């Protein structure tokens, strides 16, 4: 398989992204990006089953809008990694900043370290597995998809949650409005086992708790007096 290296210390990022966008259909080549040095928008908008390895820390929106491709960040990722991903996989070996996997429609985002605030905000069908802990307001208004948190969560986890499901191994500082703990079913254990295996995380699915929406915000309740 062809393997190409781009060095961002000498090659403009636009050239690298342009190359990745022009790849022929079905291309499975392997691209290495050296010296990312925190640049924004590395490997965004990909639409081929290519593998891109970023060797260092990435800036904002790495792997954003990804389709089909596998993007690996050997370092940390800035704000909005894999934002609005449609399919494929984005794997951050270090930590991720705020808004990781925001609005992702599909695909799998794996973060080996911690994720910042608002991880998986407005998740629309993608899967997110975080090896460490997530910051406050994670999975806010998450509509569909699964979010696995192997560590702890900050405040207001799953606030105004729709139909996305959260699996939490540690403790949440607080749950958001309408989010509640629910018993793990056999289907949950199977789903979670598959997600952990796909992410290379070695945890017993039975050590997780399920958090989902109680759906009490789905309809206007005049008697609630604006208190939830």
């Amino acid at each position, binding site marked *: 398989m062809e393997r190409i290296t781009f060095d961002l210390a000498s090659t403009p990022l636009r050239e690298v992204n342009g190359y990745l966008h022009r790849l022929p259909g079905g291309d499975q080549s392997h691209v290495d990006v050296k*010296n990312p*040095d*925190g*640049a*924004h928008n590395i490997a965004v908008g990909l639409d081929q089953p290519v593998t891109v390895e970023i060797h*260092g*820390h990435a*800036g*904002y929106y790495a792997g954003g809008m990804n389709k089909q491709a596998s993007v690996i960040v050997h*370092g*940390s990722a*800035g*704000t909005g990694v894999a934002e609005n991903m449609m399919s494929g996989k984005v794997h951050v070996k*270090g*930590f991720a*900043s*705020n808004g990781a996997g925001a609005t992702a429609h599909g695909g799998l985002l794996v973060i080996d370290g911690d994720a*910042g*605030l608002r991880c998986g905000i407005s998740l629309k069908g993608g899967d997110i597995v975080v090896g460490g802990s997530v*910051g*406050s*307001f994670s999975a806010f208004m998450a509509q569909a998809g699964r979010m696995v948190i192997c560590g702890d969560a900050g405040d207001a986890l799953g606030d105004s949650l729709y139909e996305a499901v959260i699996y939490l191994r540690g403790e949440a500082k607080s749950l958001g409005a309408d989010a509640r703990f629910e018993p793990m079913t056999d289907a949950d254990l199977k789903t979670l086992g598959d997600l952990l295996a796909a992410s290379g995380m070695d945890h017993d699915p039975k050590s997780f708790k399920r958090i989902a929406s109680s759906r009490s915000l789905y309809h206007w309740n005049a008697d609630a007096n604006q208190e939830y």
Partner: protein
Amino acid sequence: MCGIVGLLVKTPALKQQLGQLMVPMLIGMTERGPDSAGLAVFGEPLEGSARKLSLYSGLTDDGADFNWHGLTHALKEHLSVDAQIEVKHNHAVLTFDVSPDMIKKWLREHHPRLHILSTGQTIDLYKDIGTPTQVAERYGFASLTGSHLVGHTRMATESAVTPDRAHPFTAGEDFCLVHNGSLSNPYGVRRKLEPFGIHFDTDNDTEAACRFLEWRLREGDDLETALQKGFEELDGFYTFLMGTPDKLALIRDPFACKPAVVAETDDYVAIASEFRSLAHLPGVKHAKVFEPAPEEMYVWNA
């Protein structure tokens, strides 16, 4: 949007390279803050009761042609003060061994448009409008030495683009603060401070935070206690980076709306809004890199 940078060297030999290491950090934040830039550098304290002021003449009619030596002559004549002056373009550091209040009062009376940037025994402060590259070249930032510094690149949102509204802001002596974000209650904070006789130079929101925290320090709070009161009092979005003669301190608002990343090695602690401002630092590939948590205090000792 704005960019913040901070650098504290642990290895004494690196003090000579402080400016050189910092300039690419500041320039790296140009996209976040292209309209103004500035920094405060902390060096060896002056001896005894000597004090220094950083002064900016860009707002006077004479601008960079300001008669700095005329100023020292006048201070000798009017106040019998022997002051030394070191001039760079429209900036000067005035050193003397009397009460700084007396000098500042005289300056306000005789040169009302001469802007007093900072007061203290260890701090030198520079700020001006222009890109970070232009400002760094104007004042020779690359040759600055010292133990730590706090820098800022500005994209103004809350007040006009003028040199006095650029960051860092200072209050009292040997204290400065830079801010990425916007406060929602700066006028409330001002109304609280003004009855104590605290004077504001500008209408900038960051100045309210700076004067609030310095007021707490002056009232006897240690830095940690003052920052805790800051969390309670200051509302809005912020990453604040502060400098004192022996410390750098960083806090982020509870929503972590504004970014910050830290790289620490045995030789230095470097802070920036984004990693791209740290990527050039020696040994950064093996540094401990982390994102400071919201509503936590990070304090590093020089």
